[in-house]
């Protein structure tokens, strides 16, 4: 047996150093170019930026989901006193702490609301079915709610990140205790805001349709995407010679289990919502699914079912797959594309009755994604990539899957 020594932070590089500015610059450039390209493509449609607006909401929802996934992940790790994650927790912290940037990126959603949301359409807003909730679904209330969501999310995510960075210098145990005490409340507040935000951001595109499950549906998909992004970011850092040795197969095995588990959970939620509406067959409920299963969208939905659920489920079920770097990298990329495709299937049919490909949506994936990643990189610069003085770091370094 080669069980000889516990890896230490001295075994590897734990700062971005020269890599930081390069990655920051590149992502920023991709982001800006993507945004401009999307704007150009959107304007060329001649539909008064309608497709651009839908594509924007789609990609905003995707990257917001990744950040919220990170925030919820950190909260869960603290309430459960988990230790395995400590060595990679800083990565989740910066992914969550980028929420103020997402608040800026939310401004176009509010400005473009009239092109996306049914409740901005006067014909619908004045209809009988909307009468009781025009006070809730209008641009003023919508903006106000987003302000509240972002205050909550940014408050918690910045608190985690700042205090954790401060602990690098002081090693103060009080910080860990404070996290442990507050994470329960943080999770509750984050969960409530995430559910309501998913209603506002995605569900209310069709203001006449509703599902109590929608918040869970959005969250479960986002959580899978977060783990996929985290996996790729960790691998990228290792390929640049950072975090090698200290992040081991054991940690990747856990990423794999979480991706697998939440892929299954997403499938369970998606199935339950679909089956219950299919079964009861109430017109105002099935209308939403009818729109997404006709005129070519049905094929996209079926592709979603296989790509988002069935294939990654089979691909990640074995222990071997979760501990194999290439297989994990493949499924992480696959899951990002598949979850994005699923959001596409949820959002874009409201734009076009017929299935269509939106180049603007792809450009915006690069645009918003580039800016998001630039923000994450900027936050990661200057500090260690590992919470160096977290009391559970040693346990995390020694961690072994039984």
């Amino acid at each position, binding site marked *: *047996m080669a*069980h000889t020594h516990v890896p230490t932070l001295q075994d590897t590089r734990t700062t971005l150093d020269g890599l930081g500015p390069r990655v920051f610059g590149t992502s920023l450039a991709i982001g800006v170019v993507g945004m401009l390209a999307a704007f150009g493509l959107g304007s060329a449609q001649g539909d008064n930026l309608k497709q651009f607006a839908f594509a924007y909401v789609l990609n905003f929802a995707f990257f917001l989901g990744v950040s919220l996934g990170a925030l919820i992940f950190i909260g869960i790790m603290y309430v459960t006193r988990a230790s395995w994650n400590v060595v990679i927790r800083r990565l989740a912290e910066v992914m969550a702490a980028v929420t103020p940037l997402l608040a800026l990126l939310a401004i176009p959603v509010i400005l473009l609301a009239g092109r996306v949301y049914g409740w901005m359409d006067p014909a619908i807003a004045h209809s009988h079915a909307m009468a009781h909730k025009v006070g809730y679904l209008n641009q003023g209330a919508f903006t106000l709610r987003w302000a509240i969501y972002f205050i909550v999310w940014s408050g918690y995510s910045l608190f985690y990140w700042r205090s954790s960075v401060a602990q690098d210098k002081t090693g103060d145990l009080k910080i860990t205790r404070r996290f442990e005490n507050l994470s329960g409340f943080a999770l509750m507040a984050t969960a409530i805001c995430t559910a309501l935000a998913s209603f506002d951001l995605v569900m209310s595109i069709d203001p006449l349709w509703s599902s109590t499950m929608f918040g869970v549906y959005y969250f479960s998909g986002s959580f899978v995407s977060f783990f996929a992004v985290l996996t790729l970011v960790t691998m990228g850092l290792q390929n640049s010679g950072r975090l090698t040795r200290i992040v081991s197969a054991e940690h990747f095995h856990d990423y794999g289990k979480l991706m697998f588990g939440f892929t299954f959970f997403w499938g369970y939620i998606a*199935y339950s919502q*679909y*089956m219950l509406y299919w*079964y009861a*067959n109430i017109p105002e409920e099935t209308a939403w699914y009818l729109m997404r299963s006709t005129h070519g969208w049905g094929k996209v939905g079926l592709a979603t079912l296989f790509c988002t659920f069935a294939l990654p489920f089979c691909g990640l079920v*074995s222990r071997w797959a979760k501990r194999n770097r290439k297989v994990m990298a493949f499924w992480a990329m696959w899951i990002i594309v598949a979850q994005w495709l699923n959001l596409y299937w949820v959002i874009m049919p409201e734009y076009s009755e017929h299935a269509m490909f939106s180049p603007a949506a792809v450009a915006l994936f690069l645009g918003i994604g580039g800016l998001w990643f630039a923000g994450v990189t900027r936050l990661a610069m200057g500090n260690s990539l590992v919470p160096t003085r977290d009391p559970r770091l040693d346990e995390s370094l020694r961690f072994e899957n*039984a």
Partner: protein
Amino acid sequence: MSATPRNGALHALMTDFESPSQFMQACVKVRDAGYRHWDAHSPFPVHGMDDAMGIRGTRLPWIVLVGGITGFSAALLMQWWMNAVDYPYVISGKPLLGLPANFPVIFELTVLFSAFACFFGMWGLNGMPRWHHPLLANDRFRRASQDRFYVVIEARDPKFDSERTRAFLASLGGAVVEEVREIVEA
């Protein structure tokens, strides 16, 4: 102890330890000495013993996979045959084979068959149940399920030599080396 049958042929030699770490070090030595028909017994699974004993992975997951596939197909075929072919009737406007409505039973039977495959697969691979075994007739061995750790080398091992193996076992630092005899039917 008197209850230990002394009259059968030699089944194995065994020695015992008090702590898991001595036990594991002993197992590493037995493994490296090249014995094949030997075993280590402890009241709970000691972490790291698979390496220490050189045990390779089990086929059990494949057995479970076969069970799962059987359950999945059986459930699908059963529902199709019973509701869509042999006794078709339309109820609440649902298609005869409506997958959203057939999925729960498919899922349950997949799990059920997999669980049976897993449970009985483990029995089969472990040769269970086997109520009659020389070790179970040995009084000293009773603490293997309680608080002591045993290394047992069987007489059928090609490298087994009653004198040298006895000396080898004694060198491992266990309490005593004891003979385990085959059970002789009265």
